[in-house]
Structures are given as C-alpha cells and as structure tokens.
C-alpha cells in the first residue's frame, strides 16, 4: 500500500496502462502541454510523447467521435472531457454512437473507450459548470458508468475501465482530487458493476457514490459517537447498478437514506428508492428518504450555492428524522418488525 491522492492514483494508473498497451492513448483538451485542467495528466506528454497524449482543439463532439472511430479499429482511447458539463457537446457521439454500435451492428464491433470527466458543484462555478449529469449516462443501455469515491477504487476502476471492451464513463469530482488514501501497489483491477459496503452498521444504511460517500462516512462517524450504527454503501458503479448489495444492506438495517449530489427528481436516488421499495418493502421500518440537490440552476453566490447543495447537515437531519419515524432508540437492533 502507498498513500496517495485521488489525483495521483489516476495519474499513475494512466501511466501504467500507457506502458502496458500501445493501443491505449489519451486524448482531450489541454491534457498535454497544459498537463490537464486539473493536472491529472501531469508529466504524461513528456514521458509518452504526442502520439500517445493527444492535445485537441476545443471540439468535444469532434474529438470524442474521433476516439470512438479509432476504437472501432481496436485502439483504446482514454478521453478527458474537461468537465462533465462539456460532455453535452459530445453527447450525440456518446449516446447515439458509442452506446449503440455494438448492439445495432449485431455484436460485430465494440467501442472500448473511457471518458474521464469530473462533475459536481460547490466551487462557485455557477449553473453551467456545476452539474451532475451522470444520471443522463447511467440511463443509457450500452454504456457503463463508474464513480469511484476513493484513491484505491479510482485505480481499480480506471484500470478495469481501460481494459473493458465497452464505452465506460468514468466520473470524477473536483472535490475528490486531493483526497488521500491507501492504494495497493502493482496490478489492482476492480470489477465494474459491484457496490461495496464501506462501513459496517446495523441501524440505518446510507447509500451514496463519488464525493457523497466521503460525507456519508463522516456523518456515520458522528452518529457512532451517539451510539447509532450506520452502514454506508458506496455504489461505485451506476450502470450496471448492484441492486443486491444495497438491498441486502437495508434488509439488515431496515432503514435507508440516499445521499447524492445529483438533482432530486429522476435522479440516481430515485432509482435506488424504487429498487428498495420493490426489493425490501417488508423489511423497511421507515420511509426511504433522499438527500439531493435543490432543483435550481446552481447559483454563483456562496450562500445560495450552499443552500442548494446537499451537505452533512442535511444528511444528519434526514437520518435523525428517519430514526425518529421508526421510534429508534440507540442500542436496539434494526429489522425486527416484519421479517
């Protein structure tokens, strides 16, 4: 194990995969000379040269489509879209082309691309630069969408994504890049499509992904000091979605709160809540609640931005309400009612 930031884990994984396979190349705006808008690709142009690290003009639709075409011939491009907001310009190539080709062409061709892109608000970048659009992609058959919450998973899932033969959207978050954690050395390949229980608990399950997991773990720690045992499930993969893992967790704890940076209506949380309603209805002691962003174009001013974004306080409040709704007392065990 080596302690490193999320940013370093991504950088080292890209380096390792560039070394391993000559078909792997990086493409995107400002990833070479500028070393990446968020410095994820620092040093890679120097080390691998402009054939492997391709700086592009500002042309998201064009270079994403070019990457897709090159993948049809067997290359394995790792595309950086500077932020997920700009992926909207490439969305036709991603959704109408990359996602459809294998099925529509009878399974004869695959599109092994990775799109790395950070999402999320909280940096006062205002409405067009602060969005969580991952659900748009999670909605689309033919795509895979992963959203690691820590440096070790970042390495594991980026490696898996690059070696996967399908188009994978790899969601990053500006708020995670400096997060530190232990990362296994050498080969460390994750499995796309599996959630993880990242904290064991018995009284209530918080389900989250990406940056939301960090907040969830902090809040769970706070509750532990009050004698409330919270389990935290990190979805890690938004498509495919590991329904079994979070349903099994809630069957055990009997209470669930979903915490997401995403907007409330039609969000990731909506899908989780619907799954829980179907999968563990009989075990639930309280309504499933969601903590998500207010449904507004995110304002620039800090007080408004803070009010619109889900945070630890909102999560704490909703956990308390959920516990109260089932007359929870610390020390009692969950899941005792219907069975």
């Amino acid at each position, binding site marked *: 194990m080596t302690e490193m930031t999320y940013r370093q884990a991504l950088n080292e994984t890209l380096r390792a995969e560039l070394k391993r396979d000559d078909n792997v190349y990086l493409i995107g*705006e*400002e990833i070479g*000379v*500028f*070393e990446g*808008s968020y410095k994820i690709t620092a040093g890679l142009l120097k080390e691998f040269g402009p054939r492997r690290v391709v*700086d592009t*003009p*500002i*042309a*998201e*639709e*064009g270079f994403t489509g070019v990457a897709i075409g090159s993948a049809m011939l067997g290359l394995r491009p790792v595309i950086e879209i500077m932020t997920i*907001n*700009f992926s909207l*310009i490439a969305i036709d190539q991603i959704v109408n082309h990359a996602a459809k080709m294998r099925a529509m062409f009878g399974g004869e061709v695959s599109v092994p691309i990775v799109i790395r892109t950070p999402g999320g608000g909280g*940096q*006062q*970048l*205002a*409405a*067009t*630069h602060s969005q969580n659009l991952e659900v748009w992609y999670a909605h689309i058959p033919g795509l895979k969408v992963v959203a690691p919450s820590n440096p070790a998973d970042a390495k594991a899932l980026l490696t898996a994504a690059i070696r996967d033969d399908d188009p994978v959207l790899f969601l990053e978050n500006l708020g995670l890049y400096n997060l530190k954690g232990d990362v296994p050395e050498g080969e460390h390949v994750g499995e796309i499509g599996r959630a993880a229980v990242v904290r064991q608990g018995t009284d209530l399950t918080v389900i989250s992904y990406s940056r939301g997991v960090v907040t969830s773990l902090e809040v769970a720690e706070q509750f532990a000091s009050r004698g409330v045992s919270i389990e935290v499930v990190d979805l890690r993969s938004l498509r495919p979605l590991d329904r079994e893992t979070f349903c099994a967790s809630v069957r055990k704890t009997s209470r669930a709160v979903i915490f997401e940076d995403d907007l*409330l*209506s039609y969000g990731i949380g909506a899908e989780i809540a619907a799954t829980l309603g179907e999968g563990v209805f009989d075990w639930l002691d309280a309504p499933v*609640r*969601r*903590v*998500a*962003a*207010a*449904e*507004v*174009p995110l*304002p*620039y*001013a*800090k*007080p*408004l931005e803070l*009010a*619109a*974004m*889900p*945070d630890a306080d*909102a*999560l704490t*409040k*909703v956990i308390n309400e959920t516990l109260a709704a089932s007359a929870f007392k610390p020390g009692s065990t969950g899941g005792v009612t219907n069975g």
Partner: protein
Amino acid sequence: MTDTKRPTRAKGTVKQSTESAELLREFYEQMVLIREFELRAGEMYARAKIGGYCHLNLGEEATVVGLTAALRPTDYLYTTYRDHGYALARGMDPGAVMAELFGKETGVVGGRGGSMHMFDLAKRMMGGYGIVGGQIPPATGAAFAIQYRSKAGKDSEAVMCMLGDGTTNIGAFHESLNLAGLWNLPIVYVIMNNRLGMGTSVEHASAEPDLYKRGSAYRIEGVRVNGDDPIEVRDAALAALETARVKRRPSIVEAMSYRLKGHSVVDPARYRSKEDVELAQENDPVPAFRAKMLKQKVLDEKAVDAIHAKVDAIVDKAVEFADSSPDPSVSELFERIYATPVPNMPHSYPGDPVVVLS
C-alpha cells in the same frame, strides 16, 4: 482584407489621428478603467472575496474599447466568459459589476451568475457565456430576430458576437456562420485572437490559423486588425456593423492581441515561454496608447495622472459598494427561474420531504 501573418503594433509609424482629443482621452480613460478594475478583481480573488472562475481582459483593453465604441446603444452584444471589460465599456455600473463578482444581491444579475455571466438587458449586453461557443448560436438568433422584424438600412440594429481564437474550432461556430451566411443575418463575429486558448496556441489548434479567413467556406468576409489599437479596431467594427445594417451580411473581424496573464486568475501560465510573455508585455496596449497620446500631445502627464486618480476612485468605490452590499437571500433560491408559474414548481431544499399529504 489584410493578409499579414503576424501583424504587430504599428511601431514607430504613429499616424496623426484625426479623432477628437476628447474621444481619445475617453478611450484612454476606459482602457485604464478596465485595466485597474481587472487588477483589483485579481486582488479580490486572492483575498477570497471572489470565487469560482475569473477570467480577466488584461491585455485586451484596446479591443474592448474599440469594439464597444463602434456599437450603438440599440445594438446587441454577446460575449465570452472574459466579459468584465465589455460590461464596463457598455456602460454598466462598475459597482454592480464588482458586486456580481462578490456574489452580492446588488450585482448585475443578483449574484446568480458571477464573473462569467454579466448581463444587462437595458444596455443590450446580452451576456457573458461560460460554455465555449455557447454564445454564438444565440447571438446569431438575435440577428435572426432583427432580420425577422425590421428592414435593412442605416438605422437598423445589429449584433456583435465575441469569441476567442480557440473557440473558432467548435462546431457551434461553423454551424452559426453557415446559417448567418445563408440567411443574410446582421451580425459581426469578432474573434479576439489573444494567441492562446488556455495553454494551446492558435497554430496548434486551428488548421487555418489565419482566423479571419475561417468564414470563407461560408462566403463571409473577414478582416484582421491590430487589436492593440482601439481606433483601428473601432473602424473595422464600424465598417462591419454598417455591412450588417445596410447589406444584412455577416462578417468577421479578427483582433490580434496578447493575453497578458494566465487563462484565469489561478493559472500561473508556466507553459508560456519567456519570449512569449515578453512579447505580450511589449505589446501591452495601455502603456502603448498612453505613450502615443503623450507624443501626440493629446494628453500630458498631468492629464494622465488625473485620469488614473479618477479611475482609482471609481474602482475603490466599486469595491466598497460590493463589499458592503448584502448577500442574496437564501429564501429566494427558487425565484427568477421560471417565467410562467405553474403548480408544483420545485421548492424543496436538500433533505426536505418530497411530499406531505394534507
């Protein structure tokens, strides 16, 4: 149409200007206002009074002033996210512009948009836009509206749409040019060529680096001007606007200048060579214009000092106003979003219950 590969400031060849001294002094004052405002904005960012992205017009003052001088109050201006200078030159109150940067209720859009989104309908400042190329189709649409509801002629309204050199590579630019060319729309696309899009030079980004020629596939005329000379910029813009008004034809003006600092205030621009930075500094339009005005005796040292003192006071006042202004109220989070209220509009803060049956 000039066709010089790398036109630079007309060194030594100071033409005796036919402009009134009054106008030239005004140009200088506006350039200094933008310069000082931007420097102060950079300071305020460092002091965390301003957040998010903050892109400055440093080095582009001559172009900003020349272009806005060519516009009539009835013309429409669309800009990029590098928009503070345009807001000021379009006559928006410096206090309100600074307050927007501070995210205050008294800001030009109530603190909702911040640095990248200056807007003032009355001044026909139709917005700064943060998505590269995002402003170009709507600007073209404004020209469509003018075409739709009014006749060509000297009194016609027109649209000016700013974009950066790097932005000429995005699809929206090319689609818009084609539509404007096809439909004869009254619009001037101004390419602010500051030689860089973030860290990428024009030569590394554009297969046709003579950007004023990029309209040729759409039969749109283009000219390249020295963006460090406000008079040259203004004259080119006046001619292009005239074409838009009278002939209802789109055109391109490419203004050559240099970005004096990083892409945004947080970019140290380490990727720039020493020579490139020196070149940018040598071509700094503000001291150059001052020197020219002193030489032409339009200004003397005393007049220069007076302008700087006046501008300092304006910027001081703007900062004071911004700093003492109230934050937007959190209770108004859901306001100003939809124009037509209907039942069941969103109003929940994070963690509110989604439904409470009565």
